[in-house]
């Protein structure tokens, strides 16, 4: 085939550089680099790919992997690196090399950096200093057993998103917690991880003047009597997420007047009760609350702004807590109840109908409904006394026989309704 003939048929090379780069960016990096030999047109296309993802498990041996990373970084052109992902599973001890890669990315004005360096437990890895002072970094994911020595000032000047998965924090290095106390423009902070058995008190100092979303998913791998103190200074915090179940003693010091939404899942039986109530107190002005706690005790503070409530209840206090919340949430409009499978718990209707049911409560959803007598009584009570209710939706548990479902439906039809406009729907 003559050259001119060949060119006529080669349509893909006729596409503009941008599109070829777009195509290359959909490929795995090794594959993209391979295109360098296709023809002179393709020779240097890969060198300006802005997003680099390196995973050592794609390679049969560490040496080949490390050489590949070296080569890519070396032969790449001088355009900026936008995203740099390093996924290392128990890499060889060549940390200076890893560090040089990170430094290269930083030098190339990286915007998003994901360092997932899973080391053996007894090894640690020190983050390069330039990471903390990088002016272009906006998103950082850290998964590692690392040592951090951030500078006292000028730290993370542009970092808006920080996600840290901690393995075995090293107590010899008290500056671990300092990462969180020096983030001037941070808006979203997530801290996850299993905490090991340390007979000490761990203090987390979180100080972030612009922080809007905070997620703390720390859980204890080993049941010991640790205490974890969170001092949270985040005056603009809007959302608080505590998604993990097995928590030990959390003491929160948080001033959260700006808090709009909280999502709290403390379903371990080891929750320290005072702590929970202290927490509820601290978040009492949220508009939206999702609370999952199996053994709530104590009182419920006034939730004057609460508009949307999701409760996941268990245990013998469940209905009492439901009523407590209803009583304390004057402006509640949306109620979602998950009731975990269990035994009958007596339901005692309160002496006075909670205020929200009279004037605000419009939507009720009940999930995992079995049709037990106590559940029916609760649903009946809610239907009877909610005067502005628009809709009640019941989701029965999976596998409920059709016949039972229909019987349920019939029974609900008989219930008295406090609101003229109320509809009841039952789904499986």
């Amino acid at each position, binding site marked *: *085939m003559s*050259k001119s003939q*060949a*060119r006529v*048929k*080669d*349509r*893909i*090379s*006729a*596409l*503009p550089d941008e*599109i070829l780069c*777009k*195509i*290359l960016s*959909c*490929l*795995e990096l*090794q*594959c993209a*680099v*391979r*295109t*360098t*030999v*296709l*023809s*002179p047109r*393709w*020779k*240097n296309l*890969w*060198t300006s790919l802005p997003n680099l993802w390196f995973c050592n498990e794609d390679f049969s041996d560490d040496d*080949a992997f*490390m*050489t*590949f990373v*070296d*080569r*890519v970084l*070396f*032969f790449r052109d001088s355009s900026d690196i936008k995203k740099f992902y390093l996924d290392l599973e128990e890499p060889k001890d*060549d940390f*200076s*090399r890893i560090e*040089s890669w990170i*430094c*290269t990315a930083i030098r190339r004005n990286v915007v998003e950096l994901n360092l997932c360096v899973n080391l053996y437990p007894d090894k640690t890895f020190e983050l390069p200093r330039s990471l903390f002072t990088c002016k272009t970094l906006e998103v950082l994911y850290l998964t590692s057993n690392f040592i951090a020595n951030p500078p006292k000032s000028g730290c993370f000047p542009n970092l808006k998103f920080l996600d840290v998965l901690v393995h075995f924090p090293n107590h010899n290095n008290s500056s671990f917690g300092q990462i969180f106390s020096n983030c001037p423009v941070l808006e979203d902070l997530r801290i996850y991880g299993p905490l090991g058995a340390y007979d000490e008190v761990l203090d987390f100092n979180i100080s972030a003047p612009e922080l809007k979303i905070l997620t703390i998913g720390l859980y204890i791998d080993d049941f010991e009597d640790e205490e974890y103190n969170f001092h949270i200074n985040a005056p603009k915090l809007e959302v608080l997420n505590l998604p993990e179940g097995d928590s030990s003693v959390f003491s929160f010091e948080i001033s959260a007047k700006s808090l709009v939404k909280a999502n709290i899942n403390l379903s371990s039986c080891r929750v320290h009760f005072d702590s929970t109530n202290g927490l509820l107190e601290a978040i009492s002005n949220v508009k939206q609350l999702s609370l999952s706690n199996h053994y709530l005790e104590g009182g419920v503070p006034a939730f004057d702004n609460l508009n949307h409530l999701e409760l996941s209840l268990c245990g013998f206090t469940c209905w009492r807590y439901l009523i407590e919340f209803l009583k304390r949430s004057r402006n509640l409009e949306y109620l979602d109840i998950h009731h975990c499978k269990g035994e009958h718990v007596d339901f005692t209707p309160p002496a006075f109908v909670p205020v929200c049911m009279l004037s605000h409560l419009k939507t009720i959803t009940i999930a995992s409904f079995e049709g037990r007598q106590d559940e029916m009584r609760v649903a009946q009570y809610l239907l009877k006394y909610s005067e502005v209710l628009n809709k009640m939706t019941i989701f029965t548990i999976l596998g409920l026989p059709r016949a039972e479902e229909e019987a349920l439906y019939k029974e609900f039809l008989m219930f008295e309704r406090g609101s003229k406009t109320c509809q009841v729907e039952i789904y499986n």
Partner: protein
Amino acid sequence: MSEAVMAVVKPEMKSYIWLQTADGSIQQVEEEVAMFCPMICREILQTGMGSSKNYAISLPQRVNPAVLGLILDYCRFHQVPGRSNKERKTFDEKFIRMDTKKLCELTSAADSLQLKPLVDLTSRALARIIEGKTPEEIRETFHLPDDLTEEEKLEPLRNITDDPRIRLLNRLYARKRKELKEREKLKNVEAEEERVDQRSVDDLLTFINGGNGDSKGVKTNKNKKKNRRRKDPPKDSSNNVNGNHNKESEALSSAFHNESRPSSSCNLQDCTAIEFDDGDVDDDLDPAMKEQLDREVEDFARRLNSDWPERMQEILSLGQERRLAPININGNGSARRYTTGLDQR
């Protein structure tokens, strides 16, 4: 005029946009469908074109009628607001099933109309086609031109990766073999014949180099080039292996054949790095240079024989890093390792 009248008479009639493709043919399309393309949308809003046949919007050259049909099908589906994500995804998956030729045309056309979602869709589809294929297979699928120049046609060994270093080596070997033969012949035959032989090689080379066949001229070039392709460590323990050359070249060729699949990325990276052109050939008329050439060739062969991927990469990196020394070689151990000996020269 008639369209306007009709519009008044039957207000519920849809409005259409007129589009003209590069081949001159004009078609009309429902307005909401056409407006889904940013480029068309802009044309309509800014210039007011498209409302009648005479004022049809001229589409970019890359949009031919067939591919326009495809694009309009895409737009017609996606511009309907109520569709679920799942529906859209299913449509896209079916839509994208076409041969690579059409896919490339579609990408090009969608790009010229600035229809980004479609460009993304087709790019991903093209990526899926490229994924997992060897460069050979990719070239075949997309009919990429085989860009080997005439020089390479002299090559005795297969050079799948198109590596200029390998090409150089091949030439050195060809030269070497020729010289060996000539040295033997020298004992029996007149110098003239030798010259003739050499000249023919020269002729080829000068044809390539584009210079005169003058040995001096070539020599100068050679000196410069020698510096460029200077390789690493100095005194190696390789004996004079004149006799062994053929064996080595065979071993080499088998190494090449084994490495015909550029699966190791380090191999290919190095290709990217090499900038010097095919004119970089030594013309060994000077005996002293010949010796040097022998040594270097033997050294090269030895390395290639011993550990193909690692050696190649080392050698190539040496050449490269020497030239780009100022950039990037910080104090990490790996860079150091590759630069030993260079500084001594």
